[in-house]
């Protein structure tokens, strides 16, 4: 049976307004539950992102002696080129002038250091990204012995520990997200059931005057949909605004300990969309199910 849309809108609006306390309870429950879900998802995203970044983005730095000859530089460059792309993904050369610029930035707060160093005594370097993070130690061994090389630096053992740590965190957040999701759905459905239980007399009267089940159910489902959407939008705003704070709970950038993990606004937005979809679906379907048990008369 086709339901007149004016009836559905009027009923939905009327019910939301008449049962203010229950409406607020449902919206707040939805908002809190979905914020919890969103927060866990954001943390997981931050860890995922860091993992991907450090699996493929580990840098190997080959520092050369400050007095390195141009033949030595050419030799090393040729060797690096020959290893691309099988062992090395990409390489860039940082000359003395660039190294000095970096140095000035790094020690900008320490004028004593800046006074001592000049571009002439800065070591030039090759910054390379290996094809596999696992081959770092092998590359180290190979280039340390080269003439003109001062030292080879890479995060080494630390990276392995971080990757293991992140793998654990990813699994933990997955389990927590699943748990929070189930909890959120149960909480929301329970709240809707309470709201409908409070109105079981109304449902009984509707049945009595010959309302079909869908005629009764659809306004309830729209009500759940509206409550779900409003709660989800609140959760969206909270998780989106707090995304970097949430991400920082999972840890810091392993290479730069002062820099916490972050999640881009684009990624947080996608999580937000998921939350809104979950909220709307749980609201509508939950209401549909909750009202079902009162329709059997």
């Amino acid at each position, binding site marked *: 049976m086709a339901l*007149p849309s004016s009836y559905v809108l009027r009923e939905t609006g009327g019910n939301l307004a008449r049962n203010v306390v229950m409406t607020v309870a449902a919206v707040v429950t939805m908002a809190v539950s979905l914020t919890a879900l969103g927060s866990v998802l954001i943390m997981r995203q931050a860890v995922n992102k860091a993992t991907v970044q450090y699996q493929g983005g580990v840098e190997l730095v080959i520092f050369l002696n400050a007095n390195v000859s141009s033949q030595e530089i050419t030799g090393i460059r040729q060797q690096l080129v020959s290893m691309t792309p099988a062992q090395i993904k990409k390489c860039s050369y940082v000359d003395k002038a660039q190294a000095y610029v970096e140095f000035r930035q790094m020690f900008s707060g320490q004028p004593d250091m800046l006074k001592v160093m000049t571009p002439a005594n800065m070591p030039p370097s090759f910054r390379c990204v290996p094809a596999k993070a696992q081959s770092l130690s092998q590359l180290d061994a190979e280039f340390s012995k080269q003439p003109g090389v001062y030292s080879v630096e890479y995060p080494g053992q630390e990276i392995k520990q971080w990757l293991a740590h992140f793998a654990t965190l990813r699994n933990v957040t997955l389990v927590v997200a699943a748990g929070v999701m189930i909890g959120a759905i149960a909480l929301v459905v329970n709240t809707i059931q309470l709201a409908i239980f409070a109105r079981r007399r109304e449902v009984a009267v*509707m049945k009595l005057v*010959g309302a079909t089940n869908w005629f009764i159910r659809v306004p309830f489902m729209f009500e759940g949909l509206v409550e779900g959407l409003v709660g989800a939008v609140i959760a969206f705003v909270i998780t989106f605004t707090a995304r970097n704070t949430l991400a920082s709970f999972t840890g810091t950038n392993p290479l730069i300990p002062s820099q916490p993990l972050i999640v881009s606004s684009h990624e947080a937005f996608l999580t937000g969309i998921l939350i809104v979809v979950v909220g709307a679906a749980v609201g509508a379907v939950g209401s549909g199910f909750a009202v079902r048990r009162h329709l059997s008369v």
Partner: protein
Amino acid sequence: MIRFEHVHKAYKGSVTALKDVTVDIKRGEFVFVVGPSGSGKTTFLSLVTKEERADSGEIWVAGKEVGSLPPWKVPYLRRNIGCIFQDFRLLPERSVYDNVAFALEVTGRPRHFVRSQVPQILELVGLGSKMGRKPGELSGGEQQRVAVARAFVNRPLILLADEPTGNLDPATTAGIMRLLERINQYGTTVVMATHHQEIVDAMRKRVIELDHGIVVRDQARGVYGMVDA
């Protein structure tokens, strides 16, 4: 209009509500169902609307066998039946107008039809001036009038009344009875379960008496007790 053929109904806990009941109520009749509490009056009425299912026997309502009616058709059956109760069963959050309008909206009637019908029917029950009130602001008698208006607004073939005067004083009761008689005169079959001896005795309509689920008397132009023939 309503026909029970050897209807048997027992509730869980083996309480027998109706035992081999066979009754035939014709179109346009006004029937009292009487008997002490627990005699099966309410069960009798709720079998007509299929709120309850019979264990055995056949129940025909408006030409349809209720027992074999699929669940999705039950709402359409109920649109032919108006119901009123001792406790009114109005929606307390909605105005008098909305309570009555709801019964029409449920059947998918267009809005302009609802707008013209509801004031008319409220006028008929004497509540034309109180359409905007909430049920809680009305007296018991007035609330029952709203319930009657809701039950009758669809012009049902059948009106079932379960102790409709149970909560009302004598003067108000008389008013409600006049209303039901008037509805009956429009052609609606009225079946009323009651303990109210004065009403039954005064109106001299058909009386079906139940005792422990058995029809012990079915008498045209009867009275409450068994004295009159």
